[in-house]
């Protein structure tokens, strides 16, 4: 895929900029809105009949109350709070104890057609009453129960609005977070896949995105392919070199045979040469097997394998080549499981392990097994000195060999690596530990049924 650069108008930075800008705007305006909502007064209500009954008679006589001024007590605790005179110098007169922010409200009420009532902060406005062209607005302090009712209603309303806002904004934030995090999570998963060796990580439609996330996804796709290619090339090099070495090696073996001295090879140099040619052949064989296992070129068979029979056959084959083995190899236990597996791979693993044990130790070697639910463990234990705990992991690395000073005649150091890969093909594993009663124990863990 061609690496397309992100255009500025598609870029995530621009999107985020716009987004955060919009967010800040929304936050600010919603705070503002909330403030306005919460301060907005209750609308004027129709006048309660009882209030009208008290005030109406008093305020119908033009002559008596024609000169009513603001601040005057009319009756009970009703005072005049605002007066709009029909003539005179100062036509509008509002009581000074009424806050200025109520002025528009007062004007609106003065202008109404019929008397209304309306609670403001701590009092109840009533009006307008028209007296000889003048318009009057009266007020009385709110009664305690009215005050409490009002406060409660107000706080309830405020709570409801605040809750709505919090929940709404939280939901929006969740959506936004999901929108931002989802592609990143997908990228994380894909990167893990690449690390595990996948050349085609699952990215869905991410590479098609036109922003930076899309660019990152496309870069990851390219990287995965590059990584896979170079990994393949590395493996192929080893395998190709080994392939190429085979023809000269074949010739060397034939030449060695032609050179064989008359007396059957008592010449030490000739013997050394023969051994080394043989060893080269083994190394090449092993490398090729390893690379075939690693590249998944092994077509795994799946058939019933009687592990007990396989082990018995293995022991008899090894002892056929070297009769001295028969005293050292012992098959323990009766209940050997029948695996659904690849007999050739199982044998390859066990043969490598047993040969290693024969090679590196002198004592008895036992082969036993353990069944554990759906899996079974085949155990090869020697009676040698074991392996230092910090070296156990290294045992499985290709070309690792025990103490080279002591075992200069040892194998090529590929047996355990080979066994582990072979077990991996069958969805099993090979591990080693020092047995509590001495000696190294190698455990081959295999599924009873490997699909």
């Amino acid at each position, binding site marked *: 895929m061609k690496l397309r650069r992100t255009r500025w108008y598609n870029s995530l930075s621009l999107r985020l900029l716009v987004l955060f800008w919009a967010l800040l705007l929304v936050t600010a305006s919603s705070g503002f809105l909330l403030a306005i909502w919460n301060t907005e007064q209750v609308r004027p209500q129709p006048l309660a009949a009882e209030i009208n009954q008290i005030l109406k008679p008093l305020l119908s006589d033009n002559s008596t109350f024609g000169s009513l001024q603001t601040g005057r007590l009319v009756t009970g605790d009703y005072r005049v709070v605002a007066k709009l005179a029909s003539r005179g110098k100062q036509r509008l007169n509002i009581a000074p104890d009424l806050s200025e922010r109520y002025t528009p409200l007062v004007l609106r009420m003065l202008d109404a057609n019929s008397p209304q009532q309306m609670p403001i902060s701590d009092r109840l406005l009533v009006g307008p009453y028209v007296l000889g062209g003048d318009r009057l607005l009266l007020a009385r302090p709110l009664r305690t129960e009215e005050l409490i009712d009002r406060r409660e209603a107000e706080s309830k309303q405020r709570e409801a609005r605040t809750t709505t806002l919090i929940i709404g904004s939280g939901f929006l934030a969740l959506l936004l977070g999901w929108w931002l995090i989802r592609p990143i999570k997908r990228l994380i998963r894909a990167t893990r896949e690449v690390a595990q060796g996948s050349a085609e990580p699952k990215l869905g439609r991410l590479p098609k995105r036109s922003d930076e996330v899309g660019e990152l996804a496309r870069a990851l796709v390219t990287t995965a392919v590059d990584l896979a290619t170079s990994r393949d090339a590395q493996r192929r090099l080893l395998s190709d070199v080994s392939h190429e070495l085979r023809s000269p090696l*074949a010739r060397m073996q034939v030449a060695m*045979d032609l050179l064989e001295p008359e007396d059957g090879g008592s010449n030490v140099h000739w013997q050394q040469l023969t051994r080394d040619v043989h060893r080269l052949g083994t190394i090449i*064989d092993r490398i*090729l*097997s390893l690379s075939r296992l690693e590249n998944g070129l092994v*077509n795994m068979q799946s058939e019933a394998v009687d592990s007990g029979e396989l082990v018995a056959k293995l022991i008899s084959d090894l002892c056929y080549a070297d009769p001295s083995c028969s005293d050292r190899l012992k098959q323990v236990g009766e209940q050997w499981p029948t695996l659904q597996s690849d007999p050739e791979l199982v044998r390859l693993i066990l043969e490598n392990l047993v040969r290693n044990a024969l090679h590196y130790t002198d004592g008895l070697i036992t082969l036993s097994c353990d069944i554990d639910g759906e899996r079974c463990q085949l155990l090869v234990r020697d009676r040698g000195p074991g392996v230092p705990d910090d070296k156990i992991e290294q045992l499985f690395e290709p070309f690792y060999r025990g103490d080279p000073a002591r075992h200069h005649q040892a194998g090529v150091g590929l047996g355990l690596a080979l066994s582990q890969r072979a077990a991996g093909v069958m969805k099993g594993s090979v591990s080693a530990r020092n047995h509590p009663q001495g000696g190294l124990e190698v455990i081959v863990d295999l599924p009873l049924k490997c699909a």
Partner: protein
Amino acid sequence: MSKILLIDDDVELAGMLKEILTREGMTLTAVEDGEAGLDEALRGDYELILLDVMLPGIDGLQLLQRLRQQHRSTAVLMLTARGDDEDRVTGLELGADDYLAKPFYPKELVARVKALLRRSPNTSVTPEKLAYSGFDLDPTTAEVSCDQQSLILTPTEFDILRCLMQQPDQLVSKDQLSVAALGRKLAPFDRSLDVHISNIRKKLPSNPERIQTVRGRGYRLVEMP
């Protein structure tokens, strides 16, 4: 003097093999490429062909296929790359008698060659004619027929069938068959015998199950009802 044809593009190896086989009293003719090899195989009367699978021109497997199409039953020993199981099985299915992985030990090559040469029709151990389960086998002329139809079998297939017919209706172990036909015991997981048996079955005009498989143990020739 047994005449052997080697078809291998490794000229230096061919030279040395010639020396070794001459020492064993055989004559080796070496050919480097596939086309020339096929011509030579069809023209000369060779007892055995050593055939490398990787060849310039036509490869060993194609060569083998064409050779068998011409109804030539000359024994063929394939030289395969080690671990190339697929080539190996394909080769056997196409009618190769045995295979040997490269690089090989010359001693092993000589042993395999001798095993394949050992059974020319003249040196047969049981010269009497055999008949069972519809088969008629004449060891002296190396002719086989099944239900009166003549069969063209490779020497290995012939030996396997003869071995089965010598013990009619009895279980013959895989090792025994392998020793009789290939001159060696089977290596672990060696499938060559199974492939040879399947090749024989494919050549039968009817009732291939008259060669019965005894799972994991061997084969048995039974009389069909």
